[in-house]
């Protein structure tokens, strides 16, 4: 790790000014659970850190209006345990409480978590040139393609990269049509969460559409009755404290005993948080039984492509999503 300067900003404006003044090598740091980790691995090499974890009002959680609003610096643990979120939006609460450990959830922010980088072992390892990685060193190649790809993506991969988007919270937000509030030099803009993530295509090192000096100042989720019929089901290599092999975020707007609008997204299987529109379309107007749930889930993986060791994720993904659909559906009865 190179020497670096550290400054704690009080407001977003102050942070942006400090960022611009610091020039090249400036990075925002919030909880630091991902950035500091990657700095220790030599993958991130900032020269100037502007701490945005304590921006005035940025830890706000507001569930009063027609939407849920989470300040970018709200802690994962606090959002997970918010009374309204944990009662009416279980898919959101569970996506947070099943991530990492309570220690890390006490540090990490819901804004920073949107920008968590992949756990691809070829990316995280070998910063010294052991393993080629197009994400870490553009143009160097991808060792995961044709390599040990058990944990790699089956959806959204390109010829340059098949690294999985690692988050749980972004998957739940994707299902729930969240919007992201970004503040930059020229003011504030709001984008749908789906526009935050870039598929790897030929430029896997470009992961997010957020501008360099922009800050995630808030996340908004439209209120919906579907939140009460929701679940985040996460399957991993151990019972806790692990990233997803497969996860499914499901929230169902029911019309009697039939599905109205289904909200479905997948994690652990794709290069970006993956909205499963095909499954949603399949479910519309149907009653939920095991067979239908599995058919919808299978539709979600229609475009999946397996590598050498990750074909099981297609079958496991479908079964996990089917289980999640049944669980969410059972809540409406």
């Amino acid at each position, binding site marked *: 790790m190179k*020497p670096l300067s550290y400054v*704690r900003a009080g407001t977003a404006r102050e942070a942006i000014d400090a960022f611009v003044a610091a020039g090249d090598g400036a990075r925002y740091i919030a909880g630091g659970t991902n950035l500091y980790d990657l*700095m220790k691995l030599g993958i991130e090499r900032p020269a100037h850190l502007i701490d945005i974890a304590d921006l005035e009002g940025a830890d706000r959680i507001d569930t009063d209006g027609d939407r849920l609003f989470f300040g970018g610096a709200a802690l994962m643990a606090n959002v997970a345990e918010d009374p309204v979120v944990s009662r009416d939006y279980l898919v959101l609460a569970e996506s947070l409480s099943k991530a990492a450990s309570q220690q890390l959830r006490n540090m990490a922010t819901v804004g920073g978590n949107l920008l968590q980088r992949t756990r691809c072992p070829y990316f995280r390892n070998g910063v010294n040139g052991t393993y080629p990685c197009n994400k870490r060193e553009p143009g160097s190649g991808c060792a995961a393609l044709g390599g040990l790809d058990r944990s790699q993506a089956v959806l959204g991969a390109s010829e340059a990269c098949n690294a999985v988007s690692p988050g749980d919270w972004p998957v739940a937000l994707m299902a729930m049509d969240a919007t992201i509030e970004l503040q930059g030099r020229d003011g504030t803009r709001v984008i749908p969460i789906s526009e935050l993530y870039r598929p790897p295509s030929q430029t896997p090192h470009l992961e997010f559409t957020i501008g360099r000096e922009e800050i995630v100042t808030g996340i908004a989720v439209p209120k919906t009755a579907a939140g009460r019929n929701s679940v985040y089901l996460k399957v991993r290599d151990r019972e806790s404290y692990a990233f997803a092999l497969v996860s499914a975020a499901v929230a169902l707007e029911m019309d009697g005993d039939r599905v109205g609008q289904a909200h479905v997204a997948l994690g652990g299987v794709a290069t970006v948080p993956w909205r499963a529109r095909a499954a949603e379309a399949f479910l519309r107007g149907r009653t939920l039984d095991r067979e239908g749930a599995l058919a919808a889930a299978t539709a979600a993986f229609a475009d999946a492509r397996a590598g050498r060791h990750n074909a099981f994720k297609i079958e496991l993904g479908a079964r996990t999503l089917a289980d999640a659909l049944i669980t969410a559906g059972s809540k409406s009865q």
Partner: protein
Amino acid sequence: MPNSQGKHRLETTRRRVLKAGTIISLSGAMLPTTGLAQQAGPQPSPENGVTVPVSFRVNGRPAALDIDARASLLDLLRERLGLVGAKKGCDHGQCGACTVHMNGRRIASCLTMAAKAHGRDVTTIEGIAGADGLHPMQQAFIDHDALQCGYCTPGQIMAAIACVKEGHATTPEQIKEYMSGNICRCGAYVGIVAAIEQAAPQIERS
């Protein structure tokens, strides 16, 4: 928790580049003596890189020093303040051995930059036993033999106390889930769950 630290403006100061091996003294450092009762405190080491002043409370006592801005809170506690109860097991937030409380909440001190402690309260394993003896969680760990080699134990106990205070110790299943951020390679998990069940009624929720 409103933005209680918003008023602090913490900035690094660029030092003159030091010649290799030159020893300088810490300016204005106050080393707490808690936890050092049985040992000679380490001499303050010269800081390199860009330093940042950090002023905080650790186990109820004030501490202030200029520290390399790259340093973790864990390396601040262990290598600068001689508070070696918190342990390094992975240095990447993957084992929990470094768990301490910051402003009353459990965190991984290895993934917390030292500078983030500025203006805050930090509690380590050295700071939880009362004057009249062990903390109930420490006693419960002894009673249920919730440890073997003892290396992960300070982190387990700090996590366990927080687990109870958070209200996450109401069932064995919940305890297991909320203690899964602390790996015990000796495999004392059954004892750890039993210890927390014993101590929980004696610890107030926050």
